[in-house]
């Protein structure tokens, strides 16, 4: 076991890959019996400081249907200067540049520890990064001011060559022309009318560039900038001024009405603008919204305040009249954007819902961020937004653009699909399974936006027939080829080739069982569950999940906002699911089963059970749910604090005790993206609900007496406790076994 966990850790460290099974059953039949499919979590851009990019291009298998990249698993005939593709067994000639190859002079890609390797494509122009701000102006002045400051700040973080654009919207949509002297210009569109790219192009007067295309080789340079998207260095001041003059949407909002917010059209215009100018170039549409779309395509709620925005209840009752249309609108936009390799981020700051449910596919399909906060004037938003522009040691953004992920498999195994912030490129190939899981039916996916933590779940299917045994010692190989645009503008290709042993389930079931990666499997199944929850009816998913292998995580998963919509708004659900679907394993685990630390005078901080019994009066609890970080002061501690003991020199230890979780929380806050909501509460505090809703209700108002009063706090809930759940589960397991 130890070896396996080490192996797993090592693999993850090197390749950013974790498989649910690290030894694969050798036939379809056996694989099916395993319940948890062979699947992997892949973090394509896992940070590898020790991985220098190679300044040449990969060598590809010459078979048209394969095109696998030369990798350490390939057999190489150094004398004949040939290599055999380990996927299709095609024998290939090394290209002339490999003439000097020999056993002692191997290219990096043949070295075993370079199972993951990154190439830099030298061809093609260096594409600039494009950032298009899409700013809602229907918000309170305070919020708008904060937002404007954040935006201005962000300008200083952008590389000088990056192109920026600004679209503002309220009742109307304004596309600002940048870099004009004197009078500032903007193109205005009404917020109720959707436009296709061609119309938009004409209306923005961008058709001339197409006319210029006939002129010659310089054509590609032409669209590098236009009136609406200009290099930061050129219009820095101008844009700063423009932003500072940005006014609240001037259209009057009568009492009892919501401001008219044309989000749908605005986003459509943003997508269209990039579509007709920077197709297939990395671009980021950063959408800042202060409320729901209230008019035009994509509207999620009417402008009458008396009609509240849809709730899960409405959705179940089929009472959300705008939802379907809006969803369709945003889906279409997401597809357009992803086709062109553009990212859509959504930063929604409002106390009420903003329609993330309808818009979720925009970030989900394009790899964009979804950030939800109460106000633009919170550190939650400000820090998160700032963190978007985090740079790595080389000074490049930790973000990649317009990536495609291609999966190549050995013959015995095929890929069923992917779950994560990606869209299918609908590329049929020999390694595509007919059985779809998640986004399937293809061996290539587009991931418009990637960061080092972006993680996809890939599901495979063993297709080897039971009667066609795999020779002993055979290994199944999977190659992940990720082409992307680095934030430096370079085109890069990262190739990860992994291989796992085959095992006959009948004879080597122990081995297989030992190779099971519980955490990965939990997350993989959870993703699958969430995916289903998103696409199917809620209760059915739970039932489906219950029928599957259930372990500890499943208890929390069942209670998590990823599957439970109770007590969450549709927007929140979408938000949580979005992050769940893109974060790496560790973070995903935290999301499912929050981490709880206890601080007390009794000893150093210790992790405790996520159970109501852990809530004790003399403890300070620090809970990290990924989205929230809660510091909970027990009853006694809270009283002490209220009494001000921490300010007295003689109780300095108490002060330290109070400070300890805060420091830890700060550390978490600084590394997490998006920044979690930081909650400092105490026993009886209203915010304590965040904690209480997560812990296992081992004590409730129903059974607290039965459990005695020695510890813990009762949770007022009808949910079953883990104990009950487990009891029930055991019963089920036995009966099903029978």
């Amino acid at each position, binding site marked *: 076991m130890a070896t396996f966990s080490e192996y797993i850790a090592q693999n993850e460290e090197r390749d950013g890959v974790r498989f649910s099974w690290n030894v694969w059953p050798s036939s379809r039949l056996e694989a099916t019996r395993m319940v948890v499919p062979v699947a992997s979590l892949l973090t394509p851009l896992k940070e590898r400081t020790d991985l220098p990019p190679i300044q040449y291009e990969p060598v590809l298998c010459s078979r048209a249907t394969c095109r696998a990249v030369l990798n350490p698993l390939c057999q190489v005939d150094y004398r004949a200067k040939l290599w055999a593709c380990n996927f299709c067994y095609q024998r290939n000639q090394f290209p002339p540049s490999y003439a000097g190859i020999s056993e002692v002079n191997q290219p990096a890609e043949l070295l075993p520890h370079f199972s993951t390797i990154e190439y830099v494509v030298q061809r093609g122009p260096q594409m600039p990064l494009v950032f298009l701000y899409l700013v809602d102006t229907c918000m309170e002045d305070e919020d708008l001011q904060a937002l404007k400051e954040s935006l201005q700040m962000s300008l200083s973080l952008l590389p000088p060559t990056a192109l920026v654009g600004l679209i503002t919207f309220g009742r*109307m949509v*304004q596309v600002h*022309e940048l870099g004009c002297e*004197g*009078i*500032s*210009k*903007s*193109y*205005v*569109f*009404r917020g109720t*009318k959707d*436009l296709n790219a061609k*119309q938009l192009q*004409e*209306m*923005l*007067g961008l058709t001339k560039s197409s006319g210029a295309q006939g002129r010659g080789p310089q054509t590609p340079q032409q669209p590098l900038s236009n009136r609406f998207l200009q290099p930061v260095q050129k219009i820095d001041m101008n844009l700063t001024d423009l932003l500072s*003059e940005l*006014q609240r949407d*001037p*259209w*009057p909002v009568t009492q009892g009405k919501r401001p008219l917010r044309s989000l749908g059209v605005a986003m459509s215009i943003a997508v269209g603008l990039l579509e007709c100018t920077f197709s297939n170039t990395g671009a980021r549409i950063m959408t800042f919204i202060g409320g729901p779309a209230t008019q035009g395509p994509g509207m999620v709620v009417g402008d009458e305040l008396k009609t509240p925005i849809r709730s899960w209840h409405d959705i179940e009752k089929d009472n959300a009249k705008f939802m379907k249309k809006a969803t369709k609108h945003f889906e279409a936009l997401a597809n357009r954007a992803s086709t062109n390799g553009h990212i859509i981020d959504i930063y929604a700051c409002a106390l009420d819902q903003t329609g993330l449910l309808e818009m979720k596919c925009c970030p989900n399909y394009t790899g964009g961020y979804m950030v939800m906060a109460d106000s633009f004037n919170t550190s939650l938003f400000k820090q998160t937004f700032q963190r978007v522009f985090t740079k790595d040691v080389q000074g490049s953004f930790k973000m990649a653009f317009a990536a495609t992920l291609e999966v190549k498999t050995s013959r015995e195994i095929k890929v069923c699909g992917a779950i994560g912030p990606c869209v299918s490129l609908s590329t049929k190939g020999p390694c595509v399974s007919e059985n779809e899981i998640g986004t399937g039916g293809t061996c290539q996916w587009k991931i418009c936006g990637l960061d080092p933590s972006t993680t996809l779940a890939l599901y495979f299917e063993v297709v080897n027939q039971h009667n066609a045994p795999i020779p002993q010692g055979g290994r199944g190989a999977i190659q992940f080829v990720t082409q992307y645009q680095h934030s430096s503008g370079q085109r890069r290709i990262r190739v990860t080739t992994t291989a796992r042993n085959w095992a006959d389930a009948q004879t080597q079931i122990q081995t297989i069982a030992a190779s099971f990666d519980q955490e990965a499997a939990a997350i993989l199944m959870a993703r699958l569950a969430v995916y289903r929850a998103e696409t199917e009816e809620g209760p059915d998913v739970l039932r489906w999940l219950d029928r599957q292998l259930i372990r500890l995580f499943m208890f929390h998963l069942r209670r998590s906002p990823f599957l439970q919509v109770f007590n969450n708004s549709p927007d929140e659900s979408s938000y949580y699911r979005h992050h769940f679907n893109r974060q790496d394993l560790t973070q995903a685990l935290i999301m499912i089963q929050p981490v709880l630390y206890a601080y007390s005078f009794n000893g150093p901080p210790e992790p405790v059970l996520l159970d109501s019994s852990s809530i004790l009066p003399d403890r300070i609890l620090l809970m990290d749910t990924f989205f929230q970080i809660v510091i909970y002061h027990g009853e006694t501690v809270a009283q002490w604090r209220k009494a001000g003991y921490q300010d007295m020199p003689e109780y300095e230890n108490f002060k330290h005790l109070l400070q300890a979780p805060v420091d830890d929380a700060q550390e978490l806050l600084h590394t997490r993206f998006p920044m979690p909501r930081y909650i400092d509460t105490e026993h009886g505090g209203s915010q304590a609900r965040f904690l209480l809703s997560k812990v296992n209700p081992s004590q409730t108002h129903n059974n607290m007496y039965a459990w005695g009063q020695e510890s813990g706090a009762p949770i007022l809930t009808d949910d079953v406790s883990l104990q009950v759940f487990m009891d029930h589960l055991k019963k089920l397991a036995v009966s099903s076994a029978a």
Partner: protein
Amino acid sequence: MNVNQHTPMASPYGQPQPGYGQPNYAPLDGGYPASYAPYNGPASAYQPGVPPQGYSFTSFPSKAVAANPASDLSSSLDLGSARGPPTSAPPPVSAPQQYNQYSHSPADMQNGPPPMTQAPPRPAGSQPYGLGGGQPSYPQHYAPPPTMQQVTNQMGGMQLTSGPPTPAGLGYAPPHSSQPPISTSYQSAPQPSFTQAPPPASSAPTQPPPPNAPAASQQYYRGPPPPPQPPFNSALPPTSQQQFLSSAPPPPSQQTFPPSFSSSIPPPSCAPAPPVSQSQQPFSTPQPHFSSAPPPVSQPGFPSGPPPPAQGSFPPQPTPSSSQPGSVPPPGPPPTSVTSGQYPTPIQHQQQPPDSQPSPYHSGPPPPRFQMPPTVNHLPPGPQSPPGPQGPLQQPPSPQTGYPPQQNGAFGQTRSPQAGYPGPYPVQPNYGAPAPAPAPAAPAQKRLDPDAIPSPQAPDMPAVQKSRHRIDPDAIPSPIQVIEDDKAKTNEPFVTGVRGQAPPLVTTSFHVRDQGNASPRFVRCTAYNMPCTADMAKQSQVPLAAVIKPLATLPPDENPPYMVDHGEGGPIRCNRCKAYMCPYMQFIEGGRRFQCSFCNCVTDVPPHYFQHLDHTGKRVDCYDRPELSLGSYEFLATVDYCKNNKLPQPPAFIFLIDVSYNAVKSGMVSIVCHELKSLLDHLPRENPEVDSVVRVGFVTYNKVLHFYNVKASLAQPQMLVVSDVSDMFVPLLDGFLVNVNESRQVIESLLDQIPEMFADTRETETVFGPVIQAGLEALKAADCAGKLFVFHTSLPIAEAPGKLKNREDKKLIGTDKEKSLFQPQVGFYNNLAKECVAQGCCVDLFLFPNQYVDVATLGVVPVSTGGSVYKYTYFQAQTDQERFLNDLRRDLQKHVGFDAVMRVRTSTGIRATDFFGSFYMSNTTDVELAGLDCDKAITVEFKHDDKLSEETGALMQCAVLYTSCSGQRRLRIHNMAVNCCSQLADLYRNCETDTIINYFSKYAFRGVLSNPTKAVRDTLVNQCAQILACYRKNCASPSSAGQLILPECMKLLPVYLNCVLKSDVLLPGADVSLDDRAYLKQLISCMDVADTHVFFYPRLLPVMKLESGSLPVAVRNSEERLSKGGVYLMETGLHLFLWVGASVQQELLLNLFGTPSFSQIDSSMINLPVLDNPFSQRLREIIDSFRAQRSRYMKLVVVKQEDRTELIFRHFLVEDKSASGGASYVDFLCHMHKEIRQLLS
């Protein structure tokens, strides 16, 4: 002419009596006879002198002449008579003569205005008039005393004659000489005169010898008078004599004329007869006399009228009298004939007439003064002459019976209005009342019949004559004459209190005192005496219409309408018809209730409005309340009168500027932007002390629209581009419409930058529909009314709603499809207009086209929203800038109301059925005007739906609900009451030709939308012919069909109508673009009477000699009137020409242009050089004052004789044949006569 006249004369003569009278009389016929009669009296006196000759000679020749003239038109009386002798000329002459006669009659009519003269003249003028004339004279005599005095007051001249009346003889005497004779003639006086007249006639014949008189051929006509002259001289020793003497010195005839003028004319002549008319009048008068006299009619007439004293004798006399007239005419002709043949002389006469006329005028004026004296003189003469006594006698007795008719006739002729706003009316009623009137009328007609007799002859003659001879333009009714006459007689304020009183002409400047009816500056009617029944109206074909200019600017010395606030309940109105409180409301039951005079419904007076009544039933506070004592006033509207029951916001002005390549290149953009900077300080405001509350917004556009945010808080304006033109919207609200003062800096910065920003534009395509939509949406968003100023250059061919294609196709012109060119190309703009109106969005369009822009379509919205279209074809900054900027300034600053609804309520019996102008109507009663400015007039047509009563007359109340430029909701009320008549003659006496033309032009210009232009022209001609034929048939004495008899107040109808027919819209020349036509068409649609008048009949002033303080007398619009050595200024309301003759004196050129040489005059100059000499200063002053009078700035074009530009200039010489085939005045008159005759037969 002469010939014609002669011929007719002859025939009549022949038939009736010797010929003398006939010919001469024929012309004189109707009224004349009567007048003659009186004249006769004088004539008799005169006779002594001239008679014998006249009789023999004149009678025959004159007859011949007369016959001809009569046949032609008539009465070519004057001409006829004058030329009569020449007979040879007859045919042609006749026509002209006829005209002349008509004109004369009209002239008389005009003269008539001054009661005295009118009466005579009218009668003289047209036979019909003759009747009328008779009446006037009667009135003078009869009712005269009181009325007469009034009349006299008004029309001194007339009165004078009237004065004479008392001494019938006297009256006659004067009449004799002038038309008065007619009236007098009717009276006893005539008879005597006739008898005497014969002598004059004879004298006339003799005149030939006297040819000297010829000089005053007209006078000769009066010539008949000449005979009188002698009498006058004798009789009138005093003033008249003097006059005579003075005049006499030259040519005896002249003397006679003058005398006639002085004597008869003094009253009439002075005011009425002025120049041409005078001459004509005299002639006419004589003729009538003759005709009447000669024909049996005169006898019959006399019997009735004359019977008293001299009838018996008169009958004979009549002939003589006729002969006299005849003689007189002969005299006129004779002179000519004698010398170089009658024709020439006539011509001379004609020419002379003018000259003489002036002199007459001069003399005239004095006469008025003298009037009294003259009258005295007359009186003496009267008495002296047998008629005198008879006259008086007759007057009392006969007048009642026979006279009345005559009087009626006379009135008709005279235009009761003129006769006497004061006098006439009272008189008329009397007449009317006296059933006798009608009866008498018949007799009068009978008398006329005799005239008719000549006509038969005439008919034969006329055609030939026409074809053969050119009619003397001086012999036909002259607009200038009429205008000058009216000016001369208007020297007192026009008081509106009297019902049915026609105001002075639009060309006359006068002061108005509102005493219960709206000022003519607000409302002008085609007829101030409406027919009581639909049948009458239909029969006469006279359009019943009013031209209403609700927000007209008043001169500084007249008070604008007072504001009335009835408190929270709003204006007090009739419960049923909702008419607003006005002076016509009758308070009853001690003031507790009032009865609506429109619908007769009784409504309670609200307690807060209660007031006691005085013993006459008037409210005690009647004169404290404008709504009870004035014709025009305003109510403060309450919230109930506002859209959505919300008090309106102040309006907004939005400037939408085309910035396409053409616009930038022509300089328009920079000019507009530069000008707006200063212009924005002059936005309309009601209180000059306070800043305007009007907000402004700016948009530029080519294929897309650029809105500007000019919020005060911004450092720089922001441009918002809307390229989604297919579905226009306003991109911003706050910051788009701003207060000028608050945002001044931003606005100035914007206006500075716009020209720069688009300086390099390559965009040539424009949109138009979306531009208006944008403005509309902006106003909608701001929830206010307002005005859009659109500066546009080209056909909107860019892809957008309202896109147009070039459809100008010259081949369609003249075909049935031509109308389609006037119709909007697409329906889009109609719908847009509707929306604009609903929002109160008025659109003013400034066009700067270089090619076809389809004004017909682009103009739809401006026209439907009460806006204006300005067009500057081939705009060039250098030459057109001034015109454009002045137009813009005026348009921006002028008084304007928004979101207006106009409703015209009328008393039971008539109904407003049709409306013409710039507005939109969503139902049949409410005229909706998004904007209504002080230059916009609306023509309203009325139709009968029941009977009207003569007692109550017809009332109309025009209520305009509008939002003032300060955002106040108001109601402006104009009340108008007119008389009703059961006699057609009354109708014809109270018409206003200028207003009728206004109606006709609008009616016709709208007609081109649905009918071929040819059909429209024909319709116009037809209706006009019917009007005149109806008059001829029912009101004029039944003279020869060959006579053209025009009602006095419509004698200019043909000339004006011809101008309408020749306008570019109805008869385009080859160089007139479709755009120009559409432009004019819409321009006319909202013109008021003054505008249409000068537009159709431009003002042409000789400016060789200028006096400070007064303008030179205009000349007629004909090339013949231009002298090579002269300089003329012409204004058309749209253009201003300075025509410089080729042989102008150097000194003049130096004074004017600062250059001594004709060839060095730069014809491209747009302003006269500023030279420091009185002449230059004065001329520039005049030009400036002209420009100030018109709502559009007139660019000055210097036209050098023989220069290329003269072609354009000639286009406006509307009495001449036009290059596009329009008939000359003379030709058209002939044509019209033919039409009338066809109708009559």
